[in-house]
């Protein structure tokens, strides 16, 4: 089981702060696709979010293991 933590606007759109994903052996890229399909309201955001796995930055090719904590964080552009 992969535990997905949502933040900021994404959390508000999803109306929840965590999502559990039971798929096994998937990559970060595949997780983003799964999230976009399962929660269509998040599809747009999945194109631009940053992903941290166990508090370490991860790109789309990173393979997820059972028990991983995945944080989905939208980049911040203001200033």
């Amino acid at each position: 089981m992969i535990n997905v933590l949502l933040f900021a606007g994404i959390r508000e759109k999803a109306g929840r702060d965590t999502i559990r994903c039971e798929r096994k052996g998937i990559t970060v890229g595949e997780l983003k696709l799964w999230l976009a399909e399962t929660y269509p309201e998040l599809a747009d955001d999945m194109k631009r979010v940053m992903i941290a796995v166990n508090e370490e930055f991860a790109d789309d090719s990173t393979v997820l293991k059972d028990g991983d904590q995945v944080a989905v964080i939208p980049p911040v552009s203001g200033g």
Partner: protein
Amino acid sequence: MKQELKQSRYSRQMLFTPIGEEGQKRLGQSRVLIVGMGALGTVLANHMVRAGVGHVRFIDRDFVEPSNLQRQMLFDEQDAAQSLPKAIAAERKLKQINSEIHIEGIVGDLTAANIDQVAHEVDLILDGTDNFQTRFLMNDYAFKHGIPYVYGGVVAARGMQATFIPGETPCLRCLIDEGQGTGETCDTSGVIAPVVDIIASYQATEALKLLVGKKEAVRSTLLSFDLWHGFSHDIKLRQPKTGCLTCQKKEYPALEIKEEGQITSLCGRETVQITPSVKRDWDLKEWKKRLEKVGKVELTPFLLRADIDDLRLVLFTDGRVLVQGTEDVTRAKAVYARYIGM
């Protein structure tokens, strides 16, 4: 008198062991570039100038407006009333704070065409911008020239900060794909001043570490937090992205000079900026004559404002135009084409 020494300007900073007298001397010999003199930029400049960095250069394309005063800490009501360019207003304030260093404000837009000149011989680049387009430009320049780029970003009560060092860390392009929207902006979600101060102060701290030669103390994480809702992440940055165009393939795509003029929708401003591909040298008095036929115009020493229909055009001598009152790029282009000419 012993008192005089203890009361010297940087005494409290030199008492801090990791800086000391040696670090203070290094700061005095350093040169930094701050890009953007808005919310983050004013805090960054305040820190660099008070800390005694020898040469503080900054560039900003914008002017002071009343809605800036809530968070842009170098500006006051007079600056807004006079619509002073931010680089000018900031330079005035900063010189009153520290007359012993070199402070250099540039009114203009950082582009691929001028970055070589603007960033010439700086030790690092501090990010005070409000858009990823300019951030990729800074990132690519920094990695091409082997200097650190210190990123910060804010929106609502959220902030992010990371320091990118060529040869040591991944780069901004490893983390974010260029050309994708960013979701929330200051215009849709607002912003509170304390988060600005905190992010810019993290940036300033990492800059101080680098400038005094304590690279080993630099935080190698992407810090991300929400000050109001109370979450915080410190995300480790380890591997560059495979095939990253900037730090792996060394192609630096943001440094390519594009032919067409650039059009940008400004964060939280209901403003579209149109920059010509070639720098102009406009006579604003001429423009005043031309535009006062179609609307109410006002000329200041630095810019020309024209209220046309429900929009306002702001013209600068370098050919830049702000179209205010819309975020619709197409509409802005149309108005530009009609009154200014493409």
